């Protein structure tokens, strides 16, 4: 498939000084490209350059086979629309009027709207589920509503490419998901291509077809979310402690408490995770077990505990593993029972509890407020 937007050896920056170079991207119809990277990585600079708000330092940008600098302003506006980070404050302007502004490159010198223009305004508002806001004054809207209207304005421009600079900033999680779903539907149904920057890496991994990682100096990775995921590029890019950011789920854990384990948590079936986090908050180093490798507790214990006793999923727990867990318990001051009970696990758990009792290690079934 022919690429809609592509760059060749593009270098971007301010005042002829290169910030990032060697940008070679190619985006097809209906695809979403997301730029991720820490603050100040140059995401906005790249977006501004491909929308011609900023002159490129060197290299070329193409829409189809045309160099963007050769496209007249009005035609460019029919191909590319933007949603910017800056917040606008138009006075006495209804949402319908604002969205209708998207018809700018199509209307005559007086800006009068034809029947067709009006129907595009309506359908754009429909696309962002904001038809009910049409006659409302823009300045009275909430951030989430405003962002949807700004997106509708961009859609109303009927571009082939929509460029959004951090469209989810200021939005609460519900609106983030709503906005991104609208984008996904739009690309799928209308074939519009989307280029945007996002701060939410987890959402970026889920919505994007392609991801471009920047670190303020260069492009560190470019490819499908799967590729980015398996390359561990994200941890490197954001300088994250290994595992503290779970990319698969997008969950974040704070750094673990180091030291010799004081508590052994008998966890499993997800019941351990809240306890792990509580122990982390109170600054108590702990060990955890016996966890099946496919257990969610295993994911969090990997990040938060000093030691994890693991066992392969869908297999009975071997005596070796139980012995290993018992050894760690001997070195702990408390055993914490998260209350997991089922099948073969109960047998192992009972062995461990017996072991603790014999050795005079107190067993608790819930964590006290303070130690």
């Amino acid at each position, binding site marked *: 498939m022919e690429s809609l937007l592509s760059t060749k050896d593009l270098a971007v920056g301010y005042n002829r000084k290169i910030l990032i170079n060697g940008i070679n991207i190619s985006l097809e119809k209906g695809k979403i490209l997301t730029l991720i990277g820490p603050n100040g990585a140059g995401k906005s600079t790249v977006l501004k350059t491909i929308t011609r708000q900023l002159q490129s330092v060197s290299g070329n940008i193409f829409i189809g086979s045309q160099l963007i600098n050769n496209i007249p*302003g009005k035609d460019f506006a029919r191909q590319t629309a933007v949603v*910017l980070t*800056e917040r*606008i404050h*138009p*006075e*006495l302007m209804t949402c319908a009027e*604002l969205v209708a502004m998207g018809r*700018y490159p199509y209307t005559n010198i007086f800006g009068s709207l034809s029947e067709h223009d009006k129907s595009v305004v309506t359908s754009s508002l429909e696309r962002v589920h904001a038809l009910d806001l049409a006659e409302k004054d823009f300045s009275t809207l909430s951030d989430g509503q405003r962002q949807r209207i700004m997106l509708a304005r961009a859609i109303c421009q009927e571009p082939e490419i929509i460029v959004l600079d951090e469209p989810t900033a200021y939005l609460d999680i519900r609106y983030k998901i709503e906005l991104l779903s609208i984008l996904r539907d739009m690309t799928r149904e209308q074939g519009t291509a989307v280029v945007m920057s996002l701060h939410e890496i987890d959402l970026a991994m889920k919505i994007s077809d392609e991801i471009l990682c920047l670190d303020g100096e260069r492009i560190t990775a470019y490819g499908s979310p799967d590729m980015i995921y398996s390359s561990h590029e994200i941890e490197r890019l954001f300088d994250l402690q290994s595992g503290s950011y779970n990319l698969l789920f997008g969950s974040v854990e704070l750094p673990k408490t180091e030291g010799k384990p004081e508590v052994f948590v008998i966890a499993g079936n997800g019941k351990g995770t809240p306890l792990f986090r509580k122990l982390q908050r109170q600054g108590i180093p702990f060990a955890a077990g016996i966890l099946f490798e496919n257990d969610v507790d295993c994911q969090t214990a990997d990040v938060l505990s000093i030691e994890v006793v693991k066992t392969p999923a869908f297999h009975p727990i071997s005596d070796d593993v139980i012995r290993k867990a018992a050894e760690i318990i001997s070195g702990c001051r408390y055993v914490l029972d998260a209350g997991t009970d089922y099948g073969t696990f109960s047998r192992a758990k009972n062995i461990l509890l017996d072991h603790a009792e014999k050795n005079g290690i107190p067993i608790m079934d819930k964590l006290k407020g303070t130690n």
Partner: protein
Amino acid sequence: MIEKQGRFVLVMAFLVFLLFAGLVINANTGTVSIPAADVFRMTFEGLRLHITDLFTAGKYKSELDSVINADTSSQILFRIRLPRVFLAALLGGALSVSGYLLQVFFRNPIAGPFVLGISSGAKMVVGIALIFLIPHSAVNGSFSLMIASFIGSLLITMLVLLFSQKVKSMSMLLVVGIMVGYICSAVTDFCITFANDHDVINLTNWSMGSFSGANWEQVRTALRICIPGFLASFLLSKPVSAYLLSEAYAASMGVPVKAFRIVLLLVSSMLSACVTAIAGPISFVGIAVPHIARILLKSSKPNNLIPTVFLSGAVFCIFCDLIARTLFSPVELKIGTVTSVFGAPIVIYLMIKRHSGEKK
């Protein structure tokens, strides 16, 4: 949308009615009061003869003269009141549109030619021209005044533009404008100190800001500048609407932003320069009227707002002028005295409203 268009028509009709009423009231009020019926009859007769005169290459000139010079009241009407009320209407409209364009340009609701020091700049250059240049040159006085005023307006607009890139806050820009205005006044005063008495009287009369002494020649000059200026503003209404969002959004929709900004400033300066050259600096009309128009229209759609601003400005000025010349008749107030009384409170209101809005 339809409802808003209806409101626009309604507001325009209302303003046209006020304008018409204002014209009649202005024409028949004064030390010599002329009955409204006479005003209608004489104006109609004069207009008819003037038009026939135009189309017949001057054949009706003597008849026209006889209508104009029929008696004292006809002379007062044709030689004093009609040119004055037309001039007030035209210049009021021009000043208001000029202020509106500045507000768009600076994205600042309290921008206007007077508060930003632009009128004072025009006054300064006109003063310099009146004192040092015009007495020694053979060029037509009113024309060179116009040019001087335009240069002054443009010069100060550029200066304020330069400062506006440093100060982002609305109130700071206002302070800068007022200071620039003071500097210009100081320079003007300095020039006056070294000028001879005759020129000073000229300058003082002019700088008071007044429509008194208006004549048909001035009306013609004003028409030649204000009408094209107004049409240009109206043609700019589409890019203005995009620019209202933001500069970057305007550019993304295909507005050639740099050229647009230059044209906007030129048109605005041309309009305010025309007013300053003919009637002197007039305060607060440029700020207040666009807001009155917005409130009337309940919309900021430029293609509706610009004509509304023009008409509101015309109405505002003819009534202010009526007050200026009749309130303490036969003593006449400066037009600026009256416009300030009505205009300044609007600015204060806007500042307070804006300030509480910023805190949110």
